C-alpha cells in the first residue's frame, strides 16, 4: 500500500469519527502552500480540527512543522489556500491563537521576571497604552500555579532550567487564554517531570474544549496521548487518529528511511532518527 492510499484511508476514518458530532471546526486549513519566494516550504496541506482535540504534528527536521505553525499564525507568506478559525479568516483574529515558540528563540538574559513574561500573554486583552489591572495579575498568578512556578514568579528567566522556562512560556499561553494553542516542540530537551506536567496541562485544556496542536518528535507519546496525528514531510502525508496513521508505510513516507520500527513483545516502538536527515 502506498502512502496516498493510507492518507485517503486516514481521512475517511477521521470523517467518520467527526460525523457523529457537530460539524463545527476550530481550525480548518484548506490546500495550504506557504514559504518565502516561489518555492513553497510546505504545500498541499488540508486538515480540520474540532474543538477539544489534541493534534500531534510529526515529521523529520525540515519537514515544515514550524513553517506550518508560522503559516497558521500569519508569520510567513501564504502562497495558496486558506486558514480558518471558527469558520472565519484566522489572521483577523490572532489573539485567539496562542503560540509557544521553540525554546532557543528566547532571549534568556533579557531583564524580565517570570511573571513579566506571563503577563505578556495578557497584553492583547489589556489593550494599547493601558496598564495591567488586578484581573490580569490574578490571571498571571493562576497560570503560574497551573505550571507550578508560582514560587519563581520574581525570578529572572535566565536563572531557570530549560524545563522551567518551557513552563513559563506555557503559562504565558495560558494567561492569553486562546481557543487554539500551537506548541512547537514543547517537550524537546526537557526532563520527564516537565514533560508530564506540560501534557497534564494540555490535556486539561483539551478537556475544557480548547484545540491543542503540538509539534513533537516523541512518537510514542503521540500514540498514547493524542486524538489526531498529522504526518508532515513538506506535504501532508496523512492525517487521522494514531491507530489509523501509525502504519509502517505512512511513517516511512513521512520519515523516509530515517525511521526504525522496533517490536517489543506485542507492542511496536517507533524510533525516529531525527539527527541524520541532513545526510541525504
Amino acid at each position, binding site marked *: 500500500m502506498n502512502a496516498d492510499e493510507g492518507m485517503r484511508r486516514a481521512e475517511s476514518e477521521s470523517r467518520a469519527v467527526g460525523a457523529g458530532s457537530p460539524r463545527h471546526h476550530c481550525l480548518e486549513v484548506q490546500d495550504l502552500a506557504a514559504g*518565502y519566494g516561489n518555492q513553497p516550504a510546505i504545500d498541499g496541506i488540508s486538515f480540520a480540527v474540532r474543538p477539544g482535540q489534541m493534534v500531534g504534528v510529526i515529521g523529520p527536521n525540515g519537514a515544515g512543522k514550524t513553517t506550518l505553525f508560522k503559516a497558521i*499564525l*500569519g*508569520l510567513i507568506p501564504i502562497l495558496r489556500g486558506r486558514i480558518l478559525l471558527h469558520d472565519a479568516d484566522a489572521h483577523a*483574529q*490572532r*489573539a485567539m*491563537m496562542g*503560540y509557544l*515558540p521553540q525554546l532557543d*528563540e*528566547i*532571549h534568556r*538574559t*533579557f*531583564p*524580565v*521576571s517570570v511573571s*513579566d*513574561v506571563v503577563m*505578556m500573554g495578557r*497584553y*492583547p486583552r*489589556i489593550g*494599547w*497604552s493601558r496598564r495591567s489591572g488586578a484581573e490580569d495579575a490574578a490571571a498571571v498568578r493562576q497560570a503560574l500555579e497551573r505550571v507550578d512556578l508560582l514560587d519563581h514568579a520574581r525570578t*529572572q528567566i*535566565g536563572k531557570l532550567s530549560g524545563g522551567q522556562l518551557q513552563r513559563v512560556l506555557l503559562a*504565558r499561553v495560558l494567561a*492569553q487564554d486562546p481557543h487554539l494553542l500551537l506548541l512547537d516542540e514543547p517537550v524537546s530537551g526537557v526532563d520527564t517531570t516537565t514533560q508530564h506536567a506540560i501534557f497534564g496541562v494540555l490535556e486539561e485544556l483539551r478537556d475544557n474544549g480548547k484545540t491543542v496542536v503540538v509539534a513533537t518528535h516523541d512518537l510514542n507519546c503521540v500514540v498514547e496521548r493524542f486524538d489526531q496525528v498529522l504526518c508532515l514531510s513538506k506535504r501532508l502525508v496523512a492525517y487521522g487518529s494514531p491507530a489509523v496513521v501509525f502504519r509502517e508505510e505512512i511513517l516511512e513516507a513521512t520519515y523516509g528511511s530515517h525511521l526504525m520500527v522496533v517490536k517489543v513483545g506485542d507492542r511496536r516502538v517507533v524510533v525516529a532518527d531525527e539527527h541524520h536527515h541532513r545526510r541525504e
Partner: protein
Amino acid sequence: MNFLTGPWQFGFMERALLGGILVGTICAVIGTYVVLRGLAFIGDALAHAAFPGVVIAYMLKVNIYLGAAIFTVGTALGIAFVSRRARTSYDTTIGILFAGAFALGILLMSTIQGYTADLFSFLFGNILGVSTTDLLVVGVLAGIVILAVALCYKEFLLLSFDPVVAEAMGYPVQALNSLLLTLVALTIVISIQAVGVVLVVALLVTPSATAYLVTERFFRMMLLGILFSILAIVFGLYLSFYFNVASGATIVLVSTCLFFLTLGVRRLIHPAAPSI
C-alpha cells in the same frame, strides 16, 4: 563649595546642564531598547546620516535640527523598509548607506567658503554652545519621545523580548519597529548638539549597558540608565569646565569609565557572573 557651584554662575553652563540632563534621560530611555535589541550599529548609522542634513540646513540657513531630523528619520524608515525586504546582509546595506551619507556631509562641508567651526561642533559635540532655542527644541522632541514610549511601553517590551510572539498575537510588528527606529532617530537629533554625530552612539549605548550590568528588570534598567547617563553628563561637564577640554568627548569618556568601573565592581561581587 565654590568648586562645585562655581561653574553654574555662567549662563552657558546652566543651559548645558539642563540640556545635558534632557539629552541623557532620553538617550538612556531609548538606549535600553537599543542595547536589548542590538541596534547599536543602526544607531551609529543614523547618527552619521544626520550629518549631511545638518550641513545642508547650515547652507540653506534653516534650523539645523530640522535638517538632521529629516535625514535621520528618513534613513530610519529606509532601514526599516530594507530590513523588511532584503532578508540577508542588511548590515552591509546599512554600512554602505551610512558611510555614503556621511561622506556627502563632509563633501558639502568642504564646499563652504570661510567659517565652518559651527559644523565641527555637530561632528564632535559642543554642549557648552547650547542656546535657549536649542533647549526649547530639545525639550519638545524629548517630550514626544517620552510620550511615545509611555504609550507603547508594553508593546515595545514585548517587541523587544519576543517579536515572533508579538506578531503572532496580531501586533503590527513592522509599524512598531519603524516607530522604534524613528524614536532612535529623534533621540540622535536631540543629542547631536551635546555629543556630536560621531559620539552619539556612546550616549545611546553605554549608560544602558552599564545599567544592564546591575539589574535584571527592564524598568529598573531604564531608570538606572538615566542615572548613569546624567552622572556622566554632570561629571563630564565639570571636567570639561575645569580642564578646558572638549565637552562631548569628556562626557563619553566618563560614561565609558563608569561602565568599566561597574563591570569591575560586579566581577568583584559575583566572580562567576556571566558577561552580557
